[in-house]
């Protein structure tokens, strides 16, 4: 066992992170040390495989669609106060009260736009999944 058999050094060698002098020393050592040669080969294989997209990723949970819907609701709720603010500013200029009220309900209460957008998200995701998807 020599200093060059150090596992961390071998990993850095496999990863190409050593300076030129250390790299040459390791390269010479690896030629004559089968154990280190095996480790370097293993690390190179490992680094390569870790960088590849998972060929069989975990299937996506069906709850992701419901989560999308909940997040769309949260988005609408987060935007609601801003819409009210905008509406009241507009009202002071030229929008009749009735129109303002309908507009606010349309933007804040709005069950139809909310469900529509969330449904669109779910549908589009399902279509995308058919075409596959990587990491």
């Amino acid at each position, binding site marked *: 066992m020599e200093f060059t058999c150090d596992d961390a050094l071998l990993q850095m060698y496999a990863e190409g992170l050593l300076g030129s002098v250390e790299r040459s020393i390791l390269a010479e050592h690896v030629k004559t040390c089968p154990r280190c040669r095996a480790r370097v080969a293993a690390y190179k294989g490992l680094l390569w495989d870790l960088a590849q997209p998972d*060929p069989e990723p975990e299937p996506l949970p069906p709850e992701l669609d419901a989560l999308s819907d909940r997040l769309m609701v949260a988005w609408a709720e987060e935007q609601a106060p801003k819409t009210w603010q905008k509406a009241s500013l507009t009202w002071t200029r030229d929008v009749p009260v009735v129109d303002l009220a309908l507009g606010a309900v349309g933007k804040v209460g709005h069950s139809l736009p909310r469900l529509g957008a969330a449904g669109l998200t779910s549908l589009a995701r399902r279509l*995308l999944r058919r075409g596959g998807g990587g990491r």
Partner: protein
Amino acid sequence: MELDEQIVSLCQRGRQDGFARLLLTYQERVYRRAYSFVHNRDDALDLTQDVFMKVIRTIGSFTPGRPLWPWLQRITTNAALNFLRDRPALLSLDGAENLPEPAGGEDPLEAAVTAWTSQQLSQALANLPPLLRMAVVLRHHEGLSYEEVAQAMEVPLGTVKTYLFRARKALRLELSREV
């Protein structure tokens, strides 16, 4: 990048279709990244929700023109770190890195040690302690530099190196044992 700009522009105008597009483009990616950190479906779903709740609150101050994924990745990593900090055994390898080196040492072994399957690798990754797994995912799946991993995990550079060396040694030994 253009898509990101559109998404950010729509979201910053409060448009619902902008946020729908953001979910459509990134929700699966965030879930998968969260899953790679925690290796548990329900926890990954919770993390995904946390990430997008944060996005809802903060996208108004996101700088237009910047790519969204690095920002989402950072939020996902932070959410996972906060989640994992409450868990025990963040770093303990239960002796996995102290396993004996495989027997042999000649060229046939060299061929054998790289012959694991993707399922074996995935299982070995799942067996790593969470912080070591996170370092491996950020470095090797996301392609971050050591410095970027240190920044993302909020630890010194030397700590990241230690995490990675320990993690990869444990992976090598576990995979060598299986073949």
